[in-house]
């Protein structure tokens, strides 16, 4: 089976002599659903950041989508990011753009025509049950609605990999369920690899998944 993410003796740190992840080795299969758990400050978000190139490996090797993440060039990183969908805990929506344009962002970046982008966005907004809100701005929506918009944006360009950092951290039950359903749907129907960083794995999850836990800078798989 193809590997989307391969880490070999991966060490991550923000400052020298302050290792957050130490010599981690693991591989994530294409089309798999993975949870990464750990206590607050354990380094799970840092690990996720390394997957989309926001932090470079201090030591060891990290390959994402076949791209080596150490000393990666800007153009290569941009290319890789165009094939990844990211969901953040704080949504990271562009406040001055409408919901429709926010969801359209990855399609604009990938150079899709307006017609294709529009129909894709309408479809996704339908999935997240926000079609009637498409003309609104992010700050006019609730937290749950904003996260659903962020989820639609992450799915817009049919990415090979979805990275979600505490996607339901601050959400109500309904919005959380919509998010989990979408992540499961992307994994089962589109065979998209999903990596979710979270405190707790929801009991409602129906897809088979892998579980990695981070403790004291070490990452280990939980059977």
């Amino acid at each position: 089976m193809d590997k989307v993410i391969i880490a070999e003796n991966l060490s991550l740190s923000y400052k020298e002599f302050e290792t957050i992840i130490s010599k981690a080795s693991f591989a994530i299969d294409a089309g798999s659903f993975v949870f990464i758990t750990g206590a607050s400050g354990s380094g799970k978000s840092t690990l996720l950041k390394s997957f989309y190139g926001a932090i470079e490996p201090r030591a060891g090797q990290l390959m994402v989508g076949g791209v080596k993440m150490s000393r990666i060039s800007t153009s290569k990183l941009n290319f890789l990011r165009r094939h990844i969908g990211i969901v953040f805990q704080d949504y990271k929506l562009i406040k001055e753009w409408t919901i429709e344009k926010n969801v359209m962002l990855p399609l604009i970046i990938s150079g899709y025509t307006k017609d294709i982008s529009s129909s894709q966005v309408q479809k996704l907004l339908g999935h997240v049950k926000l079609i009637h809100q498409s003309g609104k701005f992010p700050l006019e929506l609730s937290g749950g609605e904003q996260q659903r918009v962020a989820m639609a944006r992450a799915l817009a360009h049919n990415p090979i990999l979805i990275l979600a950092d505490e996607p339901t951290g601050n959400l109500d039950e309904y919005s959380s369920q919509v998010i989990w359903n979408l992540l499961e749907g992307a994994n089962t129907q589109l065979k998209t690899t999903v990596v979710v960083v979270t405190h707790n794995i929801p009991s409602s999850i129906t897809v088979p998944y892998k579980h990695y836990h981070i403790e004291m800078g070490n990452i280990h798989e939980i059977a």
Partner: protein
Amino acid sequence: MKSLKNHISLIIALFTVLFSVQIYVAVDRTIEAYENRLKNDYSIIVVSNKTLSAAEFKAMDSIIERSESIATDQVLERLQGEMSKKNLDLLKLTLPKFYRLYLSRFPTPQEISKLQKRLQKHSSIERVEGYAQSHDTVYKLMLLFKDVVQIFSISIAAVTSLLILKEMRLWQFQHAERMSIMALFGAPVWLRSAVLFRLAIVDAIIATIVLCLAFFIIEQYGWMDLLLRTVGISIELFDFVNDAVRSLLIALGVSIVLTLMIVIGNEEEE
């Protein structure tokens, strides 16, 4: 509304830069016109014991544009009653030739001094009067005026630069979030900063149009033109083709440099 306010701040800053540049250009034109007027009024008197042609004078110094012989008939006519015709004819033969020399440009006091020395070296020239004293006063006044305008323009440029820097920081702050979100989804730098460049270009065009309008109004009222005419100067304060193009290029240059600084600053932060 907030965005409009930001636009206006940049447009005002750009307009101030353009306006101060245009004022400097207009003052420079005024000084040039005044220099030209002074040059036309200014001449050097040369006394020579033999006839000298214009070519001979030009060969002495390239600054000499033309020479004019000063007629002595009027002086001799006045002496007709007091002297015999024989003495008058003798005087006519021995009387030196007087020339008025006009220069190609308004000279500096050093140039006058050099020119005087050069003319005096000529064997047939007996005396040179450069009116250096009065020339020096006018010239120094003009230099003082030029310096004052220069200091004034630099002060305006400094204040405006501070305004633009402040505006730049505001832009950087406002657009950093959007640009970093776009970067997370793999947008190349040109796409991330396209909006900034578009805004900068639009603001530069608007600032140039406002400048053209301002000078159109100034010219329509005509008080500036009237003021200049009272000192015998007629200049074009604003050339609606060349000056407008130059102003647009300056505005575009300033705003594009400003945007590039924001983009580079944002890249470094990432």
